[in-house]
């Protein structure tokens, strides 16, 4: 028999395996695809440009896994944990394992739901592949990063921390917002906004940062995961265009979701901005440069003119994101620095070289507004009073980030927006987060805000040591200042023994 073309194989192995139910009303088989107001007339119009079939999916995924596990073995055999630029770098991995890996698992579960509940066989199969991918990402991230867990603090108990720790409620609440929405909003939020629109801002800097800092392990799982990511991006963009093409009435609904999920995703990425500019011992690109390249050039310059055809405009509150590219990372890293006594990672003051790099990368803002903060922090540290903020911060009801962002363009005034709902008072970090709350107040009043929970007595006790114990954070090792941490002490010892001939 002659070899079938990709097109024929896809048609036979994906589309042709579907059937139309006759004993049961299709609306009973697929009950969740009508209540959001999205109108779909022809599910067969969904195109998967990859034309992926189950046999080729398995073949290439197996190959990716073989490559990855070969690298993990040689990493362990070659003492890969010693090859980093500096032990400080591992703190970026701690945030990744605590905050991103659990999202991969949540994505695995929700794509499995879509793989059952979307009406068309094309999108169901694409969702099934993505569900398996996300589980693979969870597993490979845990396996690779466990290599570091043998030698560095803060990498244990990551899944417990994801459920409990204050800064991890930011990614957790973001994703739970998405999976508690309907299937079409989920596709818009995660598949399109996160996986297509914003993904490069998260993964490409992480992978290049890993490569630049000698982190073979992260680079390997990162590239292995990213090779699936192009399929996920395609699913996201494909989903959006499919929905827009099905019915004109879908356009305003999609625009509204896009407005919401751009801002949700962008606020989440402020943690990545801080990581890029402050937590990589060797830096290759600032947050500002990454935002300009991956968002302004590629998305605003490339994608949005394409979407204009459907009547979609760039997202609401975009101007604020563009204004903030000059200072967002400084505001967020200062927050992490001053609250790291309650976090499962270490922070420290940037070195003089790094301060100069920040000045050069942010000529309009850094020397005037942020270098003086670090000079003051250095004076305090030199006099034996490393600065930690001992209070509990007010959180934004929507993104759950402490109130640290300023009025757009005014770096001296913390922005706070407020409103009443059902007799209660709620606070927000920005117009974007307030706008999101205003759309669905009944949803966001249910937020599990870590600070409120501590005050209500739900987090192990009223003192910091009690709360840290409940978080699973080992006080004096996992948290606080890097220069006095066990990670730094071990690193110095390993390096010293290498220099003197080794033991």
């Amino acid at each position, binding site marked *: 028999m002659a070899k079938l073309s990709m097109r024929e194989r896809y048609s036979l192995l994906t589309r042709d395996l579907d059937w139309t139910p006759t004993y049961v009303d299709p609306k009973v088989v697929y009950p969740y695809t009508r209540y959001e107001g999205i109108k779909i007339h022809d599910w067969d119009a969904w195109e998967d440009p990859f034309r992926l079939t189950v046999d080729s999916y398995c073949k*290439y995924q197996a190959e990716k896994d073989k490559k990855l596990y070969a690298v993990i073995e040689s990493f362990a055999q070659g003492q890969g944990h010693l090859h980093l630029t500096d032990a400080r770098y591992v703190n970026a991995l701690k945030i990744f394992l605590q905050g991103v890996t659990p999202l991969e698992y949540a994505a695995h579960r929700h794509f499995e739901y879509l793989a059952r509940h979307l009406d068309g066989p094309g999108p169901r199969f694409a969702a099934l592949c993505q569900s398996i991918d996300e589980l693979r990402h969870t597993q490979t991230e845990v396996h690779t990063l466990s290599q570091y867990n043998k030698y560095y603090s803060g990498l244990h108990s990551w899944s417990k921390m994801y459920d409990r720790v204050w800064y991890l409620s930011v990614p957790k609440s973001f994703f739970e917002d998405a999976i508690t929405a309907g299937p079409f909003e989920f596709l818009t939020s995660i598949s399109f906004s996160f996986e297509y629109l914003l993904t490069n801002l998260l993964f490409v800097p992480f992978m290049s940062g890993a490569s630049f800092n000698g982190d073979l392990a992260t680079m390997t799982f990162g590239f292995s995961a990213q090779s699936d990511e*192009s399929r996920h991006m395609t699913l996201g*963009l494909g989903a959006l265009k499919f929905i827009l093409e099905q019915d004109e009435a879908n356009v305003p609904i999609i625009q509204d979701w896009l407005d919401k999920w751009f801002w949700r995703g962008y606020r989440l990425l402020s943690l990545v901005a801080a990581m890029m500019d402050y937590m990589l011992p060797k830096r290759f690109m600032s947050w500002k440069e990454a935002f300009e390249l991956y968002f302004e050039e590629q998305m605003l310059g490339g994608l949005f003119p394409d979407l204009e055809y459907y009547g979609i405009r760039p997202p609401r509150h975009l101007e604020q994101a563009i204004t903030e590219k000059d200072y967002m990372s400084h505001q967020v890293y200062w927050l992490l620095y001053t609250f790291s006594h309650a976090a499962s990672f270490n922070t420290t003051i940037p070195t003089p070289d790094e301060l100069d790099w920040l000045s050069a990368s942010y000529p309009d803002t850094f020397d005037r507004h942020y270098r003086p903060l670090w000079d003051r922090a250095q004076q305090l540290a030199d006099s034996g009073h490393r600065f930690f903020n001992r209070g509990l911060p007010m959180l934004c009801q929507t993104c759950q980030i402490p109130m640290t962002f300023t009025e757009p363009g005014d770096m001296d005034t913390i922005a706070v927006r407020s409103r009443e709902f059902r007799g209660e008072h709620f606070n927000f970090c920005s117009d974007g987060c307030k706008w999101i709350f205003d759309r669905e107040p009944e949803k966001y009043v249910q937020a599990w805000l870590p600070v409120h929970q501590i005050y209500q007595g739900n987090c192990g006790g009223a003192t910091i040591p009690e709360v840290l114990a409940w978080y699973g954070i080992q006080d004096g090792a996992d948290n606080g200042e890097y220069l006095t941490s066990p990670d730094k002490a071990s690193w110095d010892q390993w390096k010293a023994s290498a220099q003197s001939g080794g033991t």
Partner: protein
Amino acid sequence: MSTTGKVRQVGVDLQDSEDTHALVDAIEADNPGAEVVHMPGLIRVTTAGELVIRRESVQEQLGRDWETHEFQMNIVSYFGTIAEWDDDKIVIKWEH
């Protein structure tokens, strides 16, 4: 947003690997004016308007058989739309 006068860029980010070097050579041969930028661990190829990857050109560079599905092993990210992906070629461009 105005699109007049300017041809929009499309591009791919690829893992920096031996196979990718052959792929990049093939892309450069088939897409005159392609720009290649090296970043840590990554190679980024951009073109104006459209980017084509042809199976035959890649095979010639690799010196072995190559199916277009295998491109998944190299790709890290892309921008543009995957307009075509069949047995002989992959085309990335903006649609509208």
